[in-house]
């Protein structure tokens, strides 16, 4: 078993195995799994394997992004949390002193997320429509970083609305763009270009990466307010 060591990204660990790079985060709740991830123990610290095929953030790191913005003790607004796969790793990264607001609109996935939140005291579940940030403004606070992964046609608009309301100055904002939900008929590359143009108007884009081969027709923008 290859040794797990620190990676270039804060609070994210890596190991080399059969020429593949595997990502890990330190498990905040030892011996508790969130989904069916692999738990590994080394030097009395428990790590959770982070699968790039089910998490776009992990895919972004494996694609070589030098800075994903997340740091220990950060306060995070996570839009489109679903059942909490990626959220749980974000919660590992920010640690006990950090905090995550996980927003999703579907009651079905929220049910799963509530169980994750009961284990992890640093995630607050919010069942609300991310398209109307005012509707949950009293349930969250100003944040250091926003991460959005929503499959909606107006995902960029939603992203900008939330940045305006919640993000502190100089805060990071990550946007996972799903080209297929913006327009199925167009070429994904053209859509990414259009999104880039819109984002550039109000934000500085630090990094842009397509997530092939982990996620098809997806890309990730790392921006700064």
């Amino acid at each position, binding site marked *: 078993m290859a040794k797990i060591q620190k990676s270039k990204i804060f609070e994210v660990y890596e190991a080399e195995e059969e020429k593949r790079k595997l990502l890990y985060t330190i498990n905040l709740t030892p011996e508790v799994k969130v989904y069916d991830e692999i738990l590994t123990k080394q030097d009395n610290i428990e790590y959770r394997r982070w699968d790039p095929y089910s998490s776009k953030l992990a895919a972004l790191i494996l694609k070589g992004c030098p800075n994903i913005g997340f740091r220990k003790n950060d*306060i995070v607004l996570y839009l489109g949390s679903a059942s909490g796969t990626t959220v749980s790793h974000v919660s590992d990264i920010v640690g006990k*002193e950090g*905090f995550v*607001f996980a927003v999703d609109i579907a*009651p079905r996935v*929220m*049910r799963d997320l*509530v169980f994750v*939140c*009961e284990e992890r*005291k*640093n*995630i*607050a*579940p*919010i*069942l609300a429509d991310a398209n109307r940030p005012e509707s949950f*403004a*009293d*349930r*969250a*606070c*100003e944040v250091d970083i926003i991460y959005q992964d929503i499959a909606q046609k107006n995902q960029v608009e939603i992203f900008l609305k939330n940045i305006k*309301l*919640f993000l502190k100055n100089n805060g990071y904002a990550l946007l996972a763009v799903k080209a297929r939900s913006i327009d*199925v*008929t167009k070429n994904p590359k053209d859509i990414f270009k259009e999104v880039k143009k819109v984002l550039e108007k109000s934000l500085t884009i630090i990094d842009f990466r397509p997530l092939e081969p982990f996620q098809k027709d997806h890309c990730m923008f790392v921006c700064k307010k």
Partner: protein
Amino acid sequence: MEKTRGREHFESLYKKNLELTKKQVKESVNEDSFIAHAIGNVGELDKAINLLSKRLREWYALYNPEMERETGEHEKLVQAVLENKGKREKNSMGAEISSGDLSQIMLLAGQIKELYDLRKKHESYLEEIMKKHCPNMLEVAGVLISAKLLEHAGSLRRLMMMPASTIQILGAEKALFRHLKTGKKAKPPKYGILSQHPLIGKVKKEEYGKVARTLADKISIAVKVDYFKGKFIGDKLKEELEKKFQ
């Protein structure tokens, strides 16, 4: 919006959000969810019944091939197998099998009959629940189609917001996107879930699209009335439809 930070603040935020979300999840369940699961299970049962019935057919034919051949419908065969209790024609082609071998076949037939009963119960449950929830759509489209439309849209509210053209091709997404992607090469679909409506089977093939379009219009009206709890106009809509395609 608050800007306060600090541990105690987050603890209260955590508690408040968890409590609120739990309450919201609890309240999110309504008739729509029950309808979606019931109709989903009807589909599941249909698949299971078909699979098991085919097995029963082959298995029973070892013993009584003549009757298997005579009885076309699965449901009738199951009924016949159970009623016959192992009797058959004297000069049957079927093999001589022991009562132990036959008993397994009978058990399977019994189980399939139970599944048929469950399906019927689901259907009458759906009809009952939808009589209150969406009486107009029920009248125009029938139990199974209405339930499938609701399941597909997610809720009555979302179905109500859809234009009639969307309702018309609900369930034919694959064909629709094939058309959108390839342009003229693939023709757009005429109907999705609505294809199962009896009215579409009645008319000439050239008129299928026309019927689907009108039907979708009427369903769209009916759903809107249902959502806002208006008067019952389902019978009128149905009459108009039938008059048009006689």
